């Protein structure tokens, strides 16, 4: 069977896949998943089901797909969603420029006129992420990242649903592509809009929360290994306090990492009011949020952070 040969042509993992194996592999790629996320990723891999990750900004949704690709050796195919995204951006497109060029050269050389078959052949087909994920060669399956799916519209979701239902893409002029080995699919959403139920039903689901204090410290330790440990704890404590301020955009792990990196670059081993004031922009991206934090008192924030982060 054709499927069999392809299956044997790559050897993705030597170990039996377990939740522990997943956790360990992610750590190796500097990603710290809690039990819930590790179990969801494991199940998504073992059951061959897309994984829908929802959560606040900067909690590490997108990173999951990147790390997964790095670990499994599958190619990362990223589809960044936006309003109005269409087939041409998501699935495939014809390379009109080259088609035209082909027509002209055929005419100029005086050969027989180019047939339609020739124009709509593989060599003029541009594979966008969805098709590339379906029609991939041998080797580990690619990781298809459908990022921020909540930004796309209903029509796109319907299209996506079709592709994810049977992992086929039909190009009417050419053929129907069918995945021999389905890609690993990760969808992320910030929940600016609810993803359609039909699409959700195809997916496993996991809500990524802000990590708890100790986990966040550990994550930052992984990402900014040079930072002074005391500073990491203090910044994590300060971020935790900021998240309670009902900000427009509460800082995620990404911001904690940025902030620690910024303070470390300033040569700080401990936070103080002045450097917090200087680097506030790296953790709060909106002017309004920075104002809210200042009104709440940066001195108080530093005091809490020093106490907690000791």
């Amino acid at each position: 069977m054709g499927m069999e040969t392809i299956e044997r042509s790559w050897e993705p993992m030597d170990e039996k896949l377990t939740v522990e194996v997943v956790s360990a592999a992610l750590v190796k790629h500097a990603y710290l998943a809690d039990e819930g996320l590790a179990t969801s990723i494991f199940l998504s891999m073992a059951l061959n089901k897309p994984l829908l990750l929802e959560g606040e900004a900067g909690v590490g949704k997108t990173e999951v797909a990147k790390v997964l690709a790095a670990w499994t050796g599958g190619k990362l195919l990223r589809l960044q969603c936006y309003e109005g995204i269409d087939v041409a951006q998501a699935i495939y497109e014809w390379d009109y420029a080259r088609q035209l060029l082909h027509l002209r050269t055929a005419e100029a050389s005086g050969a027989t006129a180019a047939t339609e078959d020739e124009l709509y052949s593989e060599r003029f087909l541009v594979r966008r992420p969805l098709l590339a994920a379906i029609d991939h060669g041998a080797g580990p399956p690619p990781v298809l990242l459908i990022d921020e799916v909540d930004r796309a519209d209903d029509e796109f979701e319907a299209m996506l649903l079709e592709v994810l239902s049977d992992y086929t893409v039909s190009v009417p002029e050419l053929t129907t592509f069918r995945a021999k080995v389905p890609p690993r699919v990760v969808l992320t959403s910030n929940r600016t809009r609810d993803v359609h139920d039909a699409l959700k039903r195809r997916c496993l689901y996991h809500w990524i929360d802000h990590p708890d204090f100790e986990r966040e410290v550990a994550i930052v330790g992984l990402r900014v290994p040079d930072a002074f440990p005391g500073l990491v704890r203090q910044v994590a404590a300060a971020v935790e306090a900021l998240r309670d301020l009902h900000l427009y955009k509460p800082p995620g792990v990404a911001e904690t990492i940025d902030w620690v990196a910024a303070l470390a670059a300033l040569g700080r081993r401990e936070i103080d009011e002045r450097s917090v004031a200087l680097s506030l922009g790296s953790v709060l991206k909106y002017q309004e949020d920075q104002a809210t934090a200042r009104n709440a008192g940066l001195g108080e924030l530093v005091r809490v952070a020093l106490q907690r982060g000791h």
Partner: protein
Amino acid sequence: MATKNRQNPATNLGEEDRSTLERVAVGFARRLRTAGLVVPVSRTITYARALDLVGLSSRERVYWAGRATLLGRREDVGVYDRVFSAYWLGVSTGVQTDGPEPVLLALDDVESDADGEPEVAPEPDKEMLAVHYSAVESLREKDFAAYSEEEWADAYRLIAALSVSAELRRTRRQRRSRRRHGAFDFRRTVRLAMHTGGDLFVHARKLPTDQPRPVVLLVDVSGSMESHARALLCFTHAVTWANRSRKVEVFALGTRLTRITLELRTRDPNVALAAASSAVLDWSGGTRLGENIGRFNDRWGMRGVARGAVVVVLSDGWDRGDPALMASEMERLSRVAHRVVWVNPLKALEGFAPIAQGMAAALPWVDDFVAGHSIDALEHLADVIANSSGTKSSQKINQTLLASK
């Protein structure tokens, strides 16, 4: 899928385990639906496959497997958590599982009576009675975990009406028989004959005396039993009060062992339960079941309290201790006891399998394994304790129902 062979971990589950697992999965999904979540069948299937992959030995993993496969919205996590606790651990759900059917029942009756005639409004009193009756009647099968605060009042009354007594045991002491059976009482016949000048007008007979066996109740008060502990304690109170002059002993099993017999010897269930609660220091803490049954054996059981007794353990069998200890202590207990009854409210759940380690270890030493999760189930328990398959206690309950009307 092509990757399946290599990547699916071997699950070590036999066919039988797998079908248990499927029943457990279907039962849990159904619970979620009852609690108001939308769970398509496809998700249930995925859930069963997920359980197969992660196994049942880690509670956390069972929890996350369900969240990943059965949910699609963060908003549903709260309901999921409550149902999960109730299903897998027996903690209160706060979810109303039964709709207000009683009212409909009453209206249905009116309609079928009218039979084609224009609808007549029922007499208000009659409707009220019907509704109340159905409400109480519907309580009988309802899981205590799903009780509302109002329903407890009815429950207390119904449980108190069970008036449990243990099966009788023949003693060496004998009593007079008023009827014409029993052994010939030679001595008394002669004494009576003295009054009649030696004529044997009265043939006295004697019967062996039957005495109820002692009852020992061991109630699990750990966190996982929270939603049922109230009803079960209420039951132990009913037993204690009904047999207050006799041998009934009650112990609470938590992180330690606490004797609460004296606290429960009060008529009012609220007072009794409050007294018992304050006596138990580790209310809703962790469970060390095997250890505590051992403690009971050492301090009380072997010294006579459990000897010849009907011992009733009321617990979901979640034990943090060593299953081997549980097994050996249950064996000791079962050797001195007349009978060991285990009451596990989780047994009533669809697809229940005794997967809690403690439960599995204890089962070989248990004579009767019953649910005790509803009024009906407690009624059955009363019969089991009395070792009668008759319906004495159900008659009691029905009388109470009639009296309440």
